[in-house]
């Protein structure tokens, strides 16, 4: 965990005071909505269909139990008793009053949580691997660098009014759980031939109306230079990014229009001019940040404790363990994913009671630490294997032990037209219906890894382009229709899905998805061939044929 010091706390409190003043000026009419909108967005406040929506930052997806309890408190006190975890490791509340927001922010500030830059045309929450610091084989904990970048990009005086929003993701593992290839800047930690730590830097990825996979702009930037290099990219973007058309304002368009070579030359030229500057991180500066991350005092535990051997006789426990428990870098410990995708539930939602209960379980079993992943699930990152059976029982009682992580019902979905003022169609009821169709865990296991991602409009908050199956809501003559893509993926082999044909109406979506899955089961050449690999091998045609032959 990163521990805030007096300076971090002071800054957050100063931000709360500033926003309190801004809200007051808005409510008195001193600020027009046009002027206020940008100010509220910079504090994560949107206006949605029914109410204001409040997005709170969970930097690189790490939370303490104390912080999670405070998130529950805000849900209970200022909202309707639940929150929604997002694909950027944040949490959203859907029913908050503008007049209550300063108090909610002040309550959060007491535990070092803020909502700065969770919206607006600035640097958004820096995201990372939800298994950072505990995944086996990691180069090093990417959260050190995430925190360095978080501080550097918070209230940045030069880059708070960019052409458009700007998202950075960092990973330090071979397997990319942070989707760095679909970010404005993606950073992959690795070591060079001399054993020095640095980054492969990718730029210009993104989803939305014009999806792009990020391109490598520099294979290795030394860790000490990462701030200046990022600043060089931002400066080029701030000056040359398009501001005439909101749909062409993201850095991906600039990179595309200039070409990666020319863009890279511009950045290099700027970087060269910056030279050795105050942004260069010397060893002691990096160590200063590193020193404020604390790690659990792990015990020396057996690889296979008796408790686990005994519990293995319970098939329900075993099913959950095989699905939701992953290896930890320390022997005797595990990483446990808590599915927020119960059958029939809205993906990513958690009630205040669930949040409190998870905080208690984190204290008891995970050194008080919780993570949020971009797949909209929670993680207890340091669970002793001997505690797994007890933890499972507790999670099951809370409805948080659905053994569907990475399976067909582990659906990513945006809030869609039930909440969102940008949406063209609903997302959540589609997801709910699909989880009912595939509620049988044996079937889901037989299908294997399959990510369904749903967005209610082209802005792609549900990451539909990179779902193994992507579902995009569109409007046709006042009715909800859905375009289906297949073959997308968000990992180290990221690519965009391919459209299988004309959009289908709301009522037929679940049938179509079932047809696609059945086609896959018939077409895969062995049970281990994943859905995406079958699509890669055969292309979309056989799936298209199956779906449209009878429609």
């Amino acid at each position, binding site marked *: 965990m990163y521990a805030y010091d007096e300076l971090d706390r002071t800054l957050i409190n100063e931000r709360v005071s500033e926003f309190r003043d801004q809200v007051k000026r808005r409510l008195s009419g001193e600020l027009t909505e046009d002027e206020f909108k940008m100010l509220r967005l910079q504090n994560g406040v949107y206006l949605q269909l029914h109410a204001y929506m409040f997005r709170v930052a969970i930097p690189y997806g790490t939370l303490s139990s104390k912080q999670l309890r405070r998130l529950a408190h805000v849900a209970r006190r200022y909202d309707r008793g639940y929150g929604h975890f997002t694909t950027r490791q944040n949490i959203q509340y859907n029913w908050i009053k503008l007049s209550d927001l300063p108090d909610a922010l002040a309550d959060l500030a007491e535990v070092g949580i803020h909502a700065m830059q969770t919206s607006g045309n600035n640097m958004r929450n820096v995201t990372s691997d939800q298994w950072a610091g505990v995944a086996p084989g990691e180069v090093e904990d990417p959260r050190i660098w995430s925190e360095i970048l978080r501080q550097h990009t918070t209230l940045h005086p030069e880059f708070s009014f960019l052409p458009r929003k700007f998202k950075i993701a960092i990973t330090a593992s071979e397997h990319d759980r942070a989707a760095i290839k679909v970010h404005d800047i993606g950073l992959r930690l690795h070591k060079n031939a001399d054993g020095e730590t640095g980054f492969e830097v990718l730029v210009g990825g993104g989803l939305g109306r014009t999806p792009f996979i990020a391109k490598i702009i520099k294979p290795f930037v030394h860790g000490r230079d990462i701030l200046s290099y990022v600043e060089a990219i931002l400066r080029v973007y701030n000056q040359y990014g398009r501001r005439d058309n909101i749909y062409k304002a993201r850095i991906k368009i600039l990179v595309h229009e200039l070409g990666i070579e020319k863009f890279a030359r511009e950045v290099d030229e700027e970087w060269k001019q910056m030279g050795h500057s105050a942004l260069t991180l010397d060893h002691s500066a990096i160590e200063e940040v590193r020193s404020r991350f604390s790690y659990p005092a792990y015990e020396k535990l057996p690889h296979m404790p008796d408790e686990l051997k005994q519990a293995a006789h319970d098939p329900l426990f075993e099913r959950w363990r095989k699905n939701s428990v992953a290896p930890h870098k320390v022997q005797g410990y595990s990483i446990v994913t808590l599915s927020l995708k119960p059958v029939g539930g809205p993906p990513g939602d958690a009630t205040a009671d669930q949040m409190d209960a998870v905080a208690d379980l984190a204290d008891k079993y995970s050194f008080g630490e919780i993570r949020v992943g971009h797949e909209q699930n929670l993680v207890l990152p340091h669970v002793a294997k001997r505690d797994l059976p007890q933890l499972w029982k507790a999670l099951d009682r809370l409805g948080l032990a659905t053994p569907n992580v990475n399976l067909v019902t582990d659906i990513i979905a945006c809030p869609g*037209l039930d909440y969102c003022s940008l949406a063209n169609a609903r997302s959540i009821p589609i997801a709910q219906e699909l989880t009912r169709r595939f509620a049988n865990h044996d079937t889901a296991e037989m299908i294997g890894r399959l990510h369904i991602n749903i967005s209610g409009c082209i802005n792609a908050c549900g990451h539909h382009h990179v779902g193994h199956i992507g579902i995009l809501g569109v409007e046709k003559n006042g009715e909800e229709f859905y375009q289906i893509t297949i073959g997308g993926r968000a990992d180290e082999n990221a690519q965009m899905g391919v459209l299988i044909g004309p959009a289908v109406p709301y009522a037929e979506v679940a049938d179509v998805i079932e047809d696609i899955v059945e086609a896959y089961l018939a077409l895969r050449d062995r049970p281990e061939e994943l859905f995406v690999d079958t699509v890669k091998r055969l292309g979309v045609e056989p799936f298209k044929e199956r779906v449209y032959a009878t429609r």
Partner: protein
Amino acid sequence: MTSPLQQKIKITGPSMVTANRTSDGIVIYRTAQQGWSASLSDAAIVRTSDEARALLAEANADDVGAVGAYIAPVELKDSGEIKPGNLRERIRSKGLTIDLLPA
């Protein structure tokens, strides 16, 4: 369901003006008495594009009280009841279409 930002002021049937209240964000409807109501049944109904434009202009003039006013279609029942004219407005008027807890 088209975003109101893309709407041109041209109506094809009975319409109303709706917005969200600044202080708490709730859905409100412009009334014929130059005020706002949380109830769709109180909404002023306009039938021509000129009337719609005028009602919207009047609503927009209240920048302190309301946010993001726009014109939306309604359905008028024989009984005189006012119903939302599209899915977006049905959801705004009636709330979520989903169960919040797993069924």
